[in-house]
């Protein structure tokens, strides 16, 4: 097993052990893994199934039910438009359209180089500053389509 994967296995073991004594811990363990890796890779789910003694099918049942969990690695910059009611009314669709136009992708897609993906979220609780978008979880408030090129330009390493 390459070094990196060994680390991962150790990580899973750690997360699993931390939650072992608690009831109903599977979702929290998955949160912990996604928090660290940005998604839940298949090998990790397999490893977890062994460590926690939970059938793999049950892990996937949970992973696929909840929108929050990702099964693929995220793009370098995940741009999410808030589609809560307040932001929708104040123009998120137009902002997403502008991102899509400049990036050449649609909502739900990733650019071929893996740099950007475009998604939506449901209300991050900053409705007073609508419309908001998130760039890798960081909130940008009162965005207008005119701000889009600038936001993209800031996404450099």
């Amino acid at each position: 097993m390459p070094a990196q994967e060994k680390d991962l296995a150790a990580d899973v073991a750690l997360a699993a052990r931390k939650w072992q004594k608690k009831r109903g811990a599977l979702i929290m363990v998955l949160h912990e893994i996604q928090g660290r890796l940005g998604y839940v890779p298949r090998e990790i789910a397999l490893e977890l199934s062994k460590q926690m003694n939970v059938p793999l099918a049950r892990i996937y049942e949970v992973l696929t039910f909840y929108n929050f969990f990702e099964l693929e690695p995220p793009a370098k910059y995940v741009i999410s438009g808030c589609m809560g009611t307040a932001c929708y009314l104040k123009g998120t669709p137009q902002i997403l359209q502008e991102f899509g136009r400049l990036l050449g992708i649609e909502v739900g897609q990733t650019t071929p180089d893996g740099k950007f993906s475009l998604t939506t979220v449901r209300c991050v609780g900053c409705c007073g500053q609508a419309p908001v978008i998130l760039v890798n979880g960081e909130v940008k408030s009162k965005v207008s389509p005119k701000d889009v090129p600038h936001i993209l330009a800031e996404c450099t390493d």
Partner: protein
Amino acid sequence: MTKLQKDELETIAERRRAKRTDWITVGMGSCGLAAGADAVFRALQDGARERGLELDIRKTGCVGACHAEPLVEVDVQGAPRTLYGHVKPEWVDLILDSHVTLKRVVQRLAVPEIAEQRRTCNDHPQPEANRQFKIVTRNCGLVDPEDLEDYIAFGGYQALRRCLFELSPEEVVEEVESSGLRGRGGAGFSTGLKWRLTREAAGREKFIVCNGDEGDPGAYMDRSVLEGDPFSVIEGMTIAAYAIGANEGYLYIRAEYPLAVARIEAAIRSAKLAGLLGRNILGTDFSLNLEVRLGAGAFVCGEETALIASIEGKRGTPRPRPPYPSVSGLWGGPTCINNVETLANIPPILSNGAQWFRSIGTERSPGTKVFALTGKVRRPGLVEIPMGTPLRVVVEEIGGGALPGRTIKAVQTGGPSGGVIPAALLDTPVTYEDLAELGSMMGSGGMIVMDDEDSIVDITRFYLGFCVEESCGKCAPCRIGGRQMLTILERLAEGRGRPEDLDQLRQISKTMKAASLCGLGKSAPNPVLSTLRFFPEEYQRAISASRSNA
């Protein structure tokens, strides 16, 4: 901190209050941070250090005036307490030099109309006409949410002390019952009665659960309370646990609220260290263990039976009731599930008494309600009003009315389960009964203002689309009915409606309401029925547009 005993609460409060002479607060909830409050906070700290000022600079949660973030409040001896809005780091020098050092308020940066609106039950026991009145958000924007002693200085934990040392669990239940408090999570069920049912249910192991899933997209009351005053929710849960006989509890919070989660987790840790959670609370033989569980982006998990499944680590699908959770909930044990705002009402009720609470609001809807006022108003933000306040006061006086040059068309309450109230009916008082009579509902507190630019049919399509996406798919009426209605609404929103569409919408609505398994499917047609009732002309236009195109 060592474990506190009963009489030490007062000592801490007094010591803290004596220390608090000159202070500055910075609103650092999610909204304040998004608007740049962090840079302002750092500039204040640096500026005070450079000037050698003895100042207590505190982070607080959301003040409520989200439109004017970042907000900074200054209270120093020799100058009137002042709130500044839209503060930029560049202004900090001026505020420190003029206000703090020379005691001269910087009038042009102040926002007195917002400060005006901040009456809290701690300072003023009774509400005034046409004003906000803060019970649930009494400490939000004042208290440091990461500092237990600060909460105690604002009167925190006096209610728990009264319960543990002066009242039996039965008497606590009675007090909450006679306060008339109704659940703020949407349905408005009597909180006291729910506690009684859980208390009287047979079961060795009972649970208290705080519902912090806040599913209504476009609402953030619970987030603000969790972020701004986490200890009041924890104190409320502790009192509830004592009353119903639970020693274990969970806070179920959306993963989309990382700051709320972090603050609640920190608050649980400090309460534990101080002996206000864990074993032998305040030296008594009452013990309570609290844990956080994260939601994972499923609206249906706000529904109580789905929430229970999710805490148990399973897919969050609802199950039929009865049995109600108060009889059989988490791992089969009697479980009391209360909303964040419901729980934050508990400490003031137990400190000030049921009679005090009943004197606020209306006969059948006592107390206050927090709303997230958003959409097309001048001053969106978090507002807390006595029940019975007319919608017009909220939208026009507190919210500042329509945006320049626009007119308000309708106000939506209850989110995807609610309905619209047309502008002509804005004098409707905000109570559970009055809103239900108009086919809307109190809901959890989303209040969205729409103006003449917004299409009612499009908004309805938006809400229905939400419910369709969030349907768990377990029951057919919700899964199939929702899909069919959405197809029709999409057609209408694009101006391609057919004459028979409206009747079909009514027909499917009826089936979904009657036959769906859980509240999601039962209430998903509400926005459709409500808009059909009040805005039939917009639907007609969507149909005739297609005729003239044909």
